[in-house]
């Protein structure tokens, strides 16, 4: 009856998303090492780390795009480890990738409406669409445009918007600010904060730049070489720790 065991029981009862000691390999490379993570419902958690340390891999392992060799992922009490991606989306987790994976031959509107593909998402489609256009007015302006004609920032917005259309209550957002101008970065972060404040979404945000994004978070993790070297509230985070994590 160790503390760890109690924590795990408490976690299972209260946490929305629980990742327990997962290991992910790319061929021979051990990317994610015995990693555990838990997120409460409605929390906005930020995971920071340099490139190549496993940030995207972690998100992909949670949402099913990459297989984890051991450990488990539990969402809302259901073990979703290594389930198919679309099954996990049905359960309520949506991954918003860094490389967007949008449907470039289709229009903005078609991409968004496809976001509401799942039957559970369809009744809320109209409402979600309105919310998204409210959050990203630029998308509404361009709604009939073919996606391949959009700018980098607009593509990011569309990726987030399409993810929201799924009606998922857990968003895994992968480096949303990459390649954006400082102004757009702030806009994007504000939007994410607003989504979080509405209270219904659990958000895991993965980013490189701690300083820029740490104000968003309820809790922060620092990822280095596939392991967490820090976990806690943002006020507990100091310069030293950040430096060590990014060396």
């Amino acid at each position, binding site marked *: 009856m160790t503390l760890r065991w109690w924590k795990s029981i408490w976690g299972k009862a209260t946490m929305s998303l629980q990742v327990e000691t997962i290991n992910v390999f790319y061929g021979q490379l051990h990317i994610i090492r015995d990693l555990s993570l838990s997120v409460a419902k409605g929390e906005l958690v930020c995971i920071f780390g340099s490139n190549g340390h496993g940030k995207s891999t972690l998100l992909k392992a949670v949402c099913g795009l990459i297989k984890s060799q051991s450990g488990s992922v539990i969402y809302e009490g259901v073990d979703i480890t290594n389930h*198919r991606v679309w099954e996990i989306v049905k359960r309520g987790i949506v991954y*918003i*990738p860094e490389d967007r*994976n*949008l*449907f470039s031959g*289709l229009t903005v509107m078609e991409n968004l409406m496809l976001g509401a*593909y799942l039957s559970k998402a369809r009744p809320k489609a109209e409402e979600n669409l309105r919310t998204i256009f409210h959050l990203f007015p630029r998308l509404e302006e361009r709604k009939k445009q073919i996606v391949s004609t959009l700018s980098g920032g607009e593509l990011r917005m569309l990726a987030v918007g399409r993810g929201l259309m799924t009606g998922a209550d857990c968003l895994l957002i992968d480096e949303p600010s990459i390649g954006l101008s400082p102004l757009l970065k702030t806009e994007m972060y504000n939007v994410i904060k607003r989504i979080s404040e509405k209270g219904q979404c659990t958000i895991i945000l993965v980013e490189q730049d701690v300083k820029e994004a740490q104000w968003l978070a309820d809790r922060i993790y620092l990822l280095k070489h596939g392991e967490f070297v820090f976990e806690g509230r943002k006020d507990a985070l100091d310069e030293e720790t950040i430096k060590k994590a990014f060396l």
Partner: protein
Amino acid sequence: MEFISNLGITIISGTILGNIYGLMALGLTLIYGIGNIFNFTHGAFFIWGAYLAWFLITQVHLNMFLSILLSVSCLFLFGLIWEKWVLKPKRQDFVSIITIGLGLMMILDSMAHYLFDPTKKALPPLVEGNVDLFFVTRSMNEVVDFLIAMGILFTLWFFFSKTRVGMAIRAVSENNVGASIIGIDVDKIYTLSFAIGISLAGLSGILLAPEVYISTEAGGDALLKAVIIVILGGLGSVKGSMYAAFILGMIESAISMYVGMFWVLPSWFFIMVLILALRPRGLYGTR
């Protein structure tokens, strides 16, 4: 007067041929564009569609419409089962998939030989009689074929732009990762696309059957023609396949009329080599 008449026949035949070839090429394009599989069995299903329909019409004495429906449905069902149980485990491996396709083609060809006896068969025409169109008399059958093909094409257009499943297929063909992360069951889509592809092959075989005698050789021809159409149109492009089908259909019609039927395939082949040398993407190729 004969010149005009010949020209008329050429244009009309070309249009009709182009239409049906479009359907045929569509089957191949779909399977490649969505699942990244080259379907070696395209020609085999082309003739099996026709053979099944022939069998149902002449041996089981079902009516024409029902026979065609049943034949295409059989192919569709087979496609679902085959993709799900045989192709799925090897989807990552291109060479394995085409080799399996080659194997299936051998099996299908040999069974067609064995069951339906190699003497060439002709499907009875769908409709009897002739019709006059712009100075030219054509058989009613060709016109009906054309209308059916147009109807199918329209249905497909509707399916792919207005229905949920159709849009899902398009999503998968655009970006299969993107499709999976919004909840589309990509596995099911691959299976469905394969089944649709071979059904279209079989359907075009039925439509072309009264014009062309069915034989196992026709399967190889159909495969070759579909390949050339798809290359001209551009791999993975539906629009390209349709345009290419019309162009090549016209060329076939003109060559048959003015030079000789035997020149059709060599000239198509030559066009293909030219395209690959000068503009490999074809008309509208994206991949």
